[in-house]
């Protein structure tokens, strides 16, 4: 299933999801951990228009 792409909050272009990383700090902050990885899976998105970077929790 293709996920909805993020729109860049700075320039409006469609961002590219190029990485995922496990965050354990966010679990300490109250987020529910992924049962397989034991942490929160964060997606990293970069804007081809302006280079802006955003992250969001995968799910």
């Amino acid at each position: 299933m293709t996920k909805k792409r993020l729109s860049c909050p700075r320039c409006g272009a469609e961002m590219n999801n190029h990485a995922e990383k496990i965050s354990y700090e966010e679990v300490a902050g109250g987020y529910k951990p992924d049962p397989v990885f034991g942490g929160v899976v964060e997606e990293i998105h970069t804007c081809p228009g302006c280079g802006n970077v955003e992250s969001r929790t995968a799910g």
Partner: protein
Amino acid sequence: MESGRPIFIPVILGTTRKGRMSEHVANFMAREIVKQENVGTEVVDIRNIPFPTDDAGESIKHAGFSETAMKADAFVIVAPEYNHGYPGLLKHALDTNLKEYIHKAVGICGVSAGPFGGTRVIENLLPVMRELGLVAIFWDVNFSAVQKAFDENGKLLDEAYVKRAEKFIKELVWMAKVLRYGRENVEI
């Protein structure tokens, strides 16, 4: 295929100590970086970023430093070697960002008063770079006996460093371009 925005490679001056020779190294590297076409830089002096020390990580983000890291396509880290390790305040500063680093290139300049040119600090930094999502290049610049490489005003005394820096920077720019293309176009 390259996007039109210039490649931006800030130089992180990784020590706050008085009398630091690494400042001359950082300024030298910045002068060499701008010799490359369509590549910009600035020296980020961690002494000028007022990070609190009663907390760490992204909870003490500094807006200016994070914005610079966001804009960056690659980083040069100038790291003096202190007791075979990296400066604690450099690590403290680096740890304040994460998404801003991911899939970006990094090259490390080791600095030492002795003969090994910071080889041990570079090796110690590599696993940190990896965990931060940075991609380390295989060129380093090792500033050994740094007190002999620059005079007190920062004038380079050993011209061999110009060629060494050029090789390092060319590799870093190549990696920066490739990774920018990937970040912007290649989906995971």
